[in-house]
């Protein structure tokens, strides 16, 4: 047990701090459309040129090959640099954190050569085609069909909750390629070119006014069989390799950012006054809840370090990561719920989701206990895979 950073890690921290000071964009991220895509890809390109793309990817695939601790340092330095945008709220997220890592683990040499470099260079946007109207938490019951016809898959069906589909080039798509096999065994993971004829994308309006949410319809969409990653009918295991990665470090950026958010909220409560001119933080209940939020965010960081310590011993991120996921999602919501109480009538004025004030992010916070597996599913995973409780 120790809290020490190695000399390498200290040097890395200085390097990250200096680079971020010189290269972090100062302008706001455009909230939607082509401008947003251009902004996100330009930042990815800046990262690439600075040697910071693919921080968790192995070096042999062009990544930075950082250790988990170095990644945490990077996220902390990013948050400390007071950025005008959040790291994970980007249309490059799926490529960097899902599509790319899945291909690194499961792809052929040709697939790696074709797909990985453009992700790192900021030349391509990926989206995810997993959930369907009838397959949410029970993802393996998905019914979008992929019928083999010669050297192509012919895909028909519907996907939903697909962020950034309308600006994406490629999609990691789960389709059922064997109707007779048990539900987990008949699925394939395939790369779909979003410009293939037969694809229709419709935007879904959300409660937070974010416009990047989409549903995608497939009408006999023809995809080369060579786009299947990880083997035909082996898509469930291929997809799971991504999800275990997601339990590792993909959400560390959000967790680090939450600590800054709580400190901003404390500053807000010191500056704002009640009707009698008294600082809000002088209210005992407000003070107690802010202090509790501080403590819980501190615990979140310690849990993350414990997870990193476990992974360092076992080599793979364990299902314990799901504990951090639901602890974080619910804490994130509590922080913004508290924020709305503190700002009083200002809670009635809508602010942007990406901004550093409170109502837009409050509306967006509802996604934190749903996206990437609901907190109910995360609890099932902890109950069954960490604690060994029997399945229902």
């Amino acid at each position: 047990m120790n809290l020490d950073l190695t000399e390498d890690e200290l040097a890395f921290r200085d390097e990250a701090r200096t680079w971020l000071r010189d290269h972090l964009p100062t302008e706001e991220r455009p909230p939607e459309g082509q401008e947003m895509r251009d902004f996100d890809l330009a930042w990815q390109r800046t990262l690439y040129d600075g040697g910071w793309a693919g921080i968790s990817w192995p070096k042999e695939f062009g990544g930075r090959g950082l250790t988990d601790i170095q990644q945490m340092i990077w996220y902390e330095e990013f948050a400390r640099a007071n950025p005008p945008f959040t790291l994970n709220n980007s249309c490059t997220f799926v490529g960097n954190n899902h599509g790319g890592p899945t291909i690194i683990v499961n792809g052929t040499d040709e697939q790696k050569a074709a797909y990985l470099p453009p992700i790192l260079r900021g030349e391509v946007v990926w989206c995810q085609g997993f959930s369907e109207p009838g397959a949410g938490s029970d993802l393996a019951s998905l019914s979008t069909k992929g019928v083999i016809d010669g050297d192509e898959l012919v895909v028909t069906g519907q996907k939903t909750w697909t962020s950034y589909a309308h600006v994406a080039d490629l999609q990691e798509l789960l389709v059922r390629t064997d109707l007779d096999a048990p539900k987990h065994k008949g699925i394939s993971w395939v790369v779909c070119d979003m410009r293939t004829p037969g694809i229709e994308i419709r935007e879904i309006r959300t409660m937070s006014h974010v416009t990047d949410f989409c549903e995608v319809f497939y009408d006999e969409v023809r995809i080369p069989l060579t786009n299947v990653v990880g083997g035909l009918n082996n898509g469930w295991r291929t997809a799971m390799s991504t999800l275990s990665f997601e339990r590792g470090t993909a959400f560390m950026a959000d967790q680090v950012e939450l600590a800054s958010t709580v400190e901003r909220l404390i500053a807000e409560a010191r500056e704002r006054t009640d009707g009698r001119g008294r600082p809000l933080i002088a209210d005992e209940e407000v003070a107690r809840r802010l202090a509790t939020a501080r403590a819980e965010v501190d615990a979140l960081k310690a849990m993350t370090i414990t997870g990193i310590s476990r992974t360092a011993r076992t080599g793979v991120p364990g299902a314990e990561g799901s504990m951090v996921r639901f602890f974080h999602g619910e804490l994130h919501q509590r922080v913004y719920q508290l924020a709305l109480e503190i700002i009083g009538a200002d809670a009635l004025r809508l602010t942007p989701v990406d901004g550093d004030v409170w109502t837009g992010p409050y509306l967006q916070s509802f996604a934190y206990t749903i996206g990437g597996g609901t907190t109910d599913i995360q609890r099932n995973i902890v109950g069954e895979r960490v604690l060994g409780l029997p399945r229902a």
Partner: protein
Amino acid sequence: MDLLPTPEQDEIVATVRTQLDRQFALNDLAAHDGADRAVDRDLWRRCADLGWFGLGLDEHLGGVGYTLVEEALLFAELGAHATPGPFLATVLAARLAATGGDAELAAAILAGDLLVALAEAEDVGAAVGSTVTGRFRVTDFGGADLFLVAGTDPAAGMAVVDAVAVTAEPSLDLLVPLGVVDLDGTAARVSATDTADLALRATVLLASQLAGSATATAEQSTAYAKDREQFGRPVGSFQAVKHRCADMAARADASTSLARYASLAVTDGRPDAPFHSHAAWTVAADAAIANAQVNVQNHGGIGFTWEHTAHRYVTRAQFLVRTFGDRTAHLAALLAEPAPA
């Protein structure tokens, strides 16, 4: 950076666990329910022989020479076993005596020859220095030779005084004998008025003990949920029960991780050590109480019986969160700290 015990630390924990299972089985200790002490002198000496009271005390002060990190691991096990006895008062009194220059007194406490009870001020007017005056709540008073006395702010003075007769009161926890005593100008054997360091160590040890309690109740519920069958299947297969167990595990992981982090921050003398220590206490206090309470629920009727140990964790947690400051005090202290750099 690493928050899992080293092999040497694992060995310390394993030894502690073996001793606690053997010597402090809760169902055996039930024989002492309601007595004025839960632990007899022989058992206390055996704990002393294992070095438990000076684990984190430097060798030149008569201790074993480990750090607060190992001491906190011991306290996590004490929490996990709901072990009764004045461990915290003893560890702090030995340190106060040793650092205050009374090596003989420290040695007698460390050897288990002198028993220490904890005496905490019940009124803010209490004075704790070279003399001690005020009304004090005393725990584990039976057979005590000494009191470790603390004012309402444990960072602003502690003292070791000779024990006097205590008026016993009914205790919420029958293995934590409770009484009250009025002291008026009692001379201290040893004392200090700036006890911020001692209070900080107490905060971390309590956080660790509470986290241990939260871990044990999480494990107790999970084991029962696998074992107990209703409707023809283990109750842990039902989502309502499964999710409660998952929540308990998350609270145990959060509190254990942060208590360890805080023990390291204090040991390293980091400027943000008070921040992490008060945060660790807060998270661990909430975890211990929440887990102990839901653990009773998870056991159904059997959890409500005296025979089952579930209630021990409930009442012990209530004692621990009122030892050396309460939730209000820790939250105020946490909010007063600057954010970690």
